């Protein structure tokens, strides 16, 4: 099904380069530094997780990657080209599904195609995307009729229908109950494997980062800088009980200064 979406785009995934990116907010006239010289290289089709304490500036970093904001210092490049504005090849899935309540699920998923004037020619993709996330029967439902997990799936379909080269995931499972989260983590991995996009995940859940990502980037407290990069070469599909993952978890917690309770 992803193949149907993927056929007209033989090259899958993009590279992402962050060069010495710093950013600050203006808080009542006082500059508040949030990002401190972050450099990162993400390869084609890689799954990278950014892990850090709450409020450390992870989401700000994602907004910069998405092109929604421009960094104060430094540059971000996608496939070697500078990121200056939002582009449908980089799609964000936010923590809150924020579906448009006045649109049905189908019309929500259609949003990107409609915005780019592709709805008439590519509307078949919407069915594909809905099937991919298991919402085929809910095309005509309104967001208020969906559960939290279903809404987040619809938000995922809304992103995937655009066939992104880079999928930016801003704590997409953060508001789901733990059982739904476990299911959706597995689904995310299989979506990523089938579609082959590059994925950048922000999370504060160590287990989630290690279960999903090939590389975990640990960020410090605000202003965030990179504390450590931990490669995770365990093959997919991963098992939650894997002792190697437990070791990595210990290592990550140590970097975050939270290993006292291990």
């Amino acid at each position, binding site marked *: 099904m992803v193949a149907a979406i993927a056929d007209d785009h033989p090259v899958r995934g993009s590279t992402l380069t962050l060069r010495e990116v710093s950013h600050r907010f203006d808080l009542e006239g006082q500059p508040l530094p949030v990002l401190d010289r972050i450099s990162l290289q993400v390869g084609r089709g890689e799954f990278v997780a950014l892990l850090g304490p709450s409020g450390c500036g992870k989401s700000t970093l994602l907004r910069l990657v998405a092109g929604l904001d421009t960094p104060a210092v430094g540059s971000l490049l996608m496939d070697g080209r500078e990121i200056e504005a*939002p582009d449908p090849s980089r799609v964000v899935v936010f923590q809150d599904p924020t579906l448009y309540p006045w649109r049905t699920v189908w019309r929500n998923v259609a949003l990107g195609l409609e915005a780019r004037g592709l709805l008439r020619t590519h509307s078949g993709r919407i069915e594909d995307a809905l099937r991919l996330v298991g919402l085929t029967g809910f095309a005509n439902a309104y967001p208020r009729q969906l559960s939290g997990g279903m809404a987040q799936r619809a938000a995922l379909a809304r992103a995937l229908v655009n066939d992104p080269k880079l999928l930016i995931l801003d704590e997409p499972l953060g508001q789901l109950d733990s059982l739904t989260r476990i299911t959706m983590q597995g689904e995310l991995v299989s979506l990523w494997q089938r579609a082959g996009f590059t994925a950048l995940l922000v999370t504060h859940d160590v287990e989630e980062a290690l279960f999903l990502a090939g590389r975990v980037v640990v960020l410090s407290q605000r202003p965030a800088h990179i504390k450590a990069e931990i490669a995770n070469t365990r093959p997919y599909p991963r098992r939650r009980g894997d002792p190697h993952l437990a070791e990595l978890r210990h290592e990550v917690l140590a970097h975050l200064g939270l290993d006292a309770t291990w």
Partner: protein
Amino acid sequence: MSAVIDEVSRPQKSGFGVFARPATRSLIGGLAAAAAWFVAAALTAFWPDKIESDWAYTGNFAAACATLAFALAFAAFAGIRFTVFQRLQRLSPWLLALALFLAAWEAVTAKLGLLPLPFFPPPQAIVEVIIDDWGRLAAGILASARLLATGFFLGAAVGFMTGVAIGWSRLAGYWIHPVLRFIGPLPATAWLPLAFFVFPSSFSASVFLIALGTGFPVTVLTWSGVAGVNSTYYDIARTLGATQRFLVLKVAIPAAMPHVFVGLFMGLGNSFAVLVVAEMLGVKAGLGWYLQWAQGWAAYANMYAALLLMAFLCSGLITLLFRLRDRLLSWQKGLVRW
């Protein structure tokens, strides 16, 4: 809160709640209403009027009441077999009350003469006006409706566009917002003397005033609706490749629609007030003018008739707007209490 939920989940009950079976309740309710209308009819027909009064249509009014009574009795019996008629049962208490009200009105005016004339004519006098003067009343309704529709649509359209502009563009906000702040709260009717000599006709002047009265609440609420749109909605559309035009038309406006409708309701209410004042003071047509004219002739029955028709017109338009909202904003059902 739980009390509210109980209220909603409980099945519809009428005022005659004591009888258990719906068919029985329907029959008794219906017959009671029919009986009340018979009383009104009999009282009108057989109780002689006060000597010096001379009302045409007394017989006709009584006949109309009796006809309604027969129809209600028939519906009550039909309700035993056909559930369709049982729905009428919801109206029975109101129908009964209405009949009693008319009977009492008849008694204190035409029969006993307790209320002074010509200020309080009996019901048949109003029937008389509606039958004898229907041409002028219909012309009045048409004139009022035309003026109201022109002014309301103009004001709503301009208000909506202004609201979107202020909500969307910083520049528009900078220039229009202070003007709105300063002039908006002024009642539209305050412009009346000015409007009537600035505009070429009293019709165009009134259109302007009604548009002004409608436009202000529509502008303010459209603006607050657009300004209050969740900024993540924009972020999402932008990352999906939306243009500015798309953001306005497909994100800002649909998201603001619930607010816009509040503005339209307020605007419609305002427009009624401005309409009547404009018609009373300048326009030589319409129900407002008819009211004024009737008062000049001390024709109070005509005034009551015009008031009655005006009430139908206004409540009808409000109902129409509610219907439109229910259609356009059906996605809100379940999100907010209706």
